[in-house]
């Protein structure tokens, strides 16, 4: 068990380090309307790094825990490799803070119908929760809620916005 926690911590550090190096190279952009240009018509990409509007790691674990979302493909609640790596970092963070409880929010892009997206958002939040539980986080510290398409991170109507809105978001209770 201890070994596992250690391994997770190591992983978290590595992931954080990875993001740190990335953030040095990337211009930090939060929401600059100038850059909200619709991307070329491409299939939703698996990788999150090509969307300039997604928040990037700051290196501050408290900030990153809230700011960094996990992303999903259209009509999917499956955790991508990238999402899994990020979740491992989150698990490590939660382990180090024994007094925190976390709410996982599941979100969808605006496409598709309201009710179905509520259900899909719940599946996304639940799969993130289950992954964290599998990493040893007590289920009692994790609650989840779906907002469907009701709380977009990006109000745009283009591929970039949709990609950024299909997300799992983490909040401290």
């Amino acid at each position, binding site marked *: 068990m201890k070994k596992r926690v250690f391994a997770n911590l190591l992983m978290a550090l590595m992931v954080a380090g990875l993001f740190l190096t990335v953030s040095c190279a990337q211009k930090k952009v939060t929401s600059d309307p100038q850059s909200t240009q619709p991307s070329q018509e491409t299939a939703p990409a698996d990788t999150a790094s090509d969307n300039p509007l997604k928040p990037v790691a700051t290196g501050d674990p408290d900030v990153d825990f809230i700011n960094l979302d996990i992303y999903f493909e259209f009509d999917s609640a499956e955790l991508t490799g990238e999402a899994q790596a990020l979740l491992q970092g989150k698990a490590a963070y939660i382990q180090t803070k024994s007094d925190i409880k976390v709410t996982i929010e599941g979100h969808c892009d605006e*496409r*598709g119908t*309201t009710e*179905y997206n*509520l*259900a899909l958002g*719940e599946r996304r939040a639940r799969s993130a929760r289950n992954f964290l539980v599998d990493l040893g986080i007590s289920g009692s510290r994790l609650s989840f809620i779906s907002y469907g398409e009701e709380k977009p991170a990006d109000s745009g109507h283009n591929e970039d916005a949709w990609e950024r809105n299909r997300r799992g978001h983490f909040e401290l209770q």
Partner: protein
Amino acid sequence: MTYKKLIKFYSFFIVILFIAVFGNSFVYCQDVTILNINNPSIRKIPLAVPEFKQFLKGAEIEQDAKKAQNLLRDALNFTGYLKIINAQAYLANPAETGIARKDIDFLDWTGIGAELLVTGGISVDNDKVKLWLRLFDTFDMRLLVGKIYTGDRKDLRIMIHRFCSEVSLKLTGQRGVFGSKIAFVSRVKGKKEIFTCEFDGFNPQQITFHKSITLSPAWSSDSEWIAYTSYAKGKPDIFIKNLKQKRGTIINKEGMNIAPAWVPGEFALAASLSFSGDPEIYLLTGKGKIIKRVTESRGIDISPKFSPDGKNIVFVSRRAGSPQIYIKNLETNNIRRLTFEGSYNTSPAWSPNGDRIAYVGIRQGRIDIYTIGIEGEFPVQLTSVAGDNEDPSWAPDGSLIIFSSTRRGGRSQLFVMTAAGGEQRRLLSFKGEQTDPDWSMVNN
């Protein structure tokens, strides 16, 4: 109209006449349908609505006469199966020559192609407005509907729409949409609340004030209750609200409580609850007590809607790996898949006459409204213009479908079309974004 069709048309009336004369009762006529509004290739019937005759002179009467004529025109035009002939083409003016059958030279109307004529008269009697309204078949020179209404000036709209219901009943065998209402979601100051308006978008009224995310309004059959989903208490719960009294129930089991749909004619509903681990459909009493579980499958089961007889439920399930529409027979428990085309079909709505399902499909990234027969036959795409088209809901007589669309400037607004996808038009001009329309049954 071809000659053959004309003969058919006339023989129809002759039969009615016989029934009327020899059956010694007009009750039989109630069953006669002149128009089949479910026919997708329906031809619009040309109709004339001339000025109202004013039996008294005065500014108020003149104003009311104009208003009544406009209300009548707009309401009949809304049906989608009547075409109002432009007043400039009219050869006669019943406002001067008279509005009763004996006053009318029907050649004046058949001459301009009008197959139907509505005449109106208006007067004032003890501060009440009095209306004489008649519907004529011009080719047959026959009175189809004749009614007199008396009421307050402010009730002019109600009186005109009562008459339109009679016209609809005579022409289609059903009372139409005129006594129905529409519930919808609109954004207010960044929050979403439920509103209602009349069938034509008139008089929008906010009915929830949760200052939260509020979605999925559903009318009960008697239009006395609305069930909806709201985050008012922090997570999605179902609120069951009486519209006249301050009564209601909240279904707030663990997890999500969403997608309410009323059982036809009963104080009971179906909804999707996720307390068991994933969204499953349940039957509940109007007080929120579970009667039974309807679906048992891993993955999403959502958006239930009942067949008009209440014996079947149509719903969305992801059991086969993509969201598709299924029908469950509640008596035999048999479940069958209805949609096979495309990998995203959601938001089903059962037509009031029971034979078709409207739904939302995504094809090549385009979100549009489709209908399909309940055995999976004749799928038809109804929207294709532009924007995302979602949330179909049928008018109580099945002649029209209301939906939300982003076709105008990207903002979601409410639109109406015929059941065959014709006559697509915006329902109301209203600030904010409107979604989730639900059309009530007729209540008059």
